[in-house]
């Protein structure tokens, strides 16, 4: 078979793509009209489950960017069981994440020993002002609604409870 010159092969490739796009549609997504669902593990935004946070400062200290700020105070809470002693709990006053600094490494979520921080795949939270990227406790708690279940694992994976 005689060799087709590369010049014509190249033309063929573009023509084929043209044909494919016309018949099968484009590979792109028309973003504001249709949205792709990010995978469940996607690191979009960090959500805070406020009730679980004991303000232990572990996330603050392990953040490479120093972008988490926690303030809290100690408080006496009513006893768990009737007749028990009142407990001392840490009350969270402030929990801010500065998304202008955050580099989405996920270390804070990993180190949290009390399951208070979660990744949510939500990504549409850009702001016209950079100061608005500082999400406070209330806003971080709102993201909790968007946190998905952890995905099933591939065959051969060792069953492991979420710590």
């Amino acid at each position: 078979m005689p060799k087709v010159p590369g010049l014509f092969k190249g033309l063929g490739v573009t023509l084929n793509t043209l044909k494919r796009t016309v018949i099968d549609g484009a590979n792109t997504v028309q973003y504001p009209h249709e949205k792709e669902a990010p995978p469940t593990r996607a690191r979009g935004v960090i959500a805070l489950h406020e009730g679980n946070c004991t303000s232990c400062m572990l996330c603050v200290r392990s953040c490479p960017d120093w972008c988490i700020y926690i303030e809290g105070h100690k408080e006496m809470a009513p006893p768990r069981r009737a007749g028990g002693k009142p407990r001392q709990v840490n009350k969270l006053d402030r929990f801010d994440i500065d998304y202008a600094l955050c580099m989405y490494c996920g270390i804070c979520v990993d180190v949290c020993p009390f399951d208070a921080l979660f990744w949510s795949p939500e990504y549409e939270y850009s702001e016209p002002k950079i100061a608005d990227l500082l999400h406070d406790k209330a806003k971080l708690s709102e993201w909790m609604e968007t946190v998905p279940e952890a995905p099933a694992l591939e065959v051969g994976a060792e069953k492991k409870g979420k710590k």
Partner: protein
Amino acid sequence: MIALLAADLPYWAQTLLRILGGLVAVLLPAGTIVYLFLFKMMSFMQSRLGPMEAGPYGSMQLFAEVGKWLQKEDITPARADRVIFKIAPLVVLASTFLLVAVVPFGPDAWFTNFEAGVFYLLAVSSVSVLGILMAGWSSANKYSLLGGLRAAGQLIAYELPMVLAVIGVIIQAGTMNLQGIVVAQNGGEIFGWNGLGNPYILTQFTGFIIFMIAVQAELTQTPFDMPIAESELVSGYMTEYSGFRFLTFFIAEFATAGVFSLIASVLFLGGWGVPFAWFDWKSIDDVSDWMNVVGPLIMFTKMMVLAFVIMWVRFSYPRFREDQLQRFAWKVLIPISLVNIMITAILKVAF
């Protein structure tokens, strides 16, 4: 535009009509090429949709772009040669209008119709080089200068193969009048069979290929876009232009693509005409008047086919290097076209 209509009108009205006709003949192909090929076909070849927001399927995108460019600040570099810098885009665009002036669109639909049409055509097509050189030199930018000089070298190198390729057509048609060439093709016959007329693409196929390559180079489209060369010279001679001056360059680029496709269709594809044998026309005088309406449409279709090829190549190929281009022009194209002329001449004498 239409000579028939214009015949009994006062001079100013004729002029107005011609100007309007010229604008339509330049801008309509340019707009169509930009939307259909640059926006849509390129996107489709790259598995995407292209502009979709402005108008249905982005059809109004071009107007949006024009609006955007018109709003932009017209920046002149501090050390630029101001007058030349400002004139340059207009010179380039003027070349396009000069080109379209001699293209016949129908038996009576033409702006001017004179005997040395082809000669004039090839002469004014190099006016754009002047504009590009002016733009490159006056911008006071090294990239622009390199781009301008490359453009000058390249356009001059490709003028010659283009001329030589057209000579074959002229020899065959026996006239330099573009209208005459159209008639010669449609009224011609191939070995006594006149069902298709005699479009010169069949007899002058080498010439056609050389002409199209030269057009590609003349238009500075890939693979001959070294004067623009975004990845090397950052748009070359257009680097410093903004706002409506850039728009002028942009329009000129695609309008010239359209006009050259028109010219190629006139020279090689039979122009506006249909084979005369279909309607038993013997000469141009027999051609019905409705051809003045259908003719431009036929021309437009042929132009789109040729522009498609130009753009298709543009979107598929990488770019040559300047010295390779020169070598290609002088060592390949010119000898081939000379041989082509020789063979045509011999055959012309023989038959």
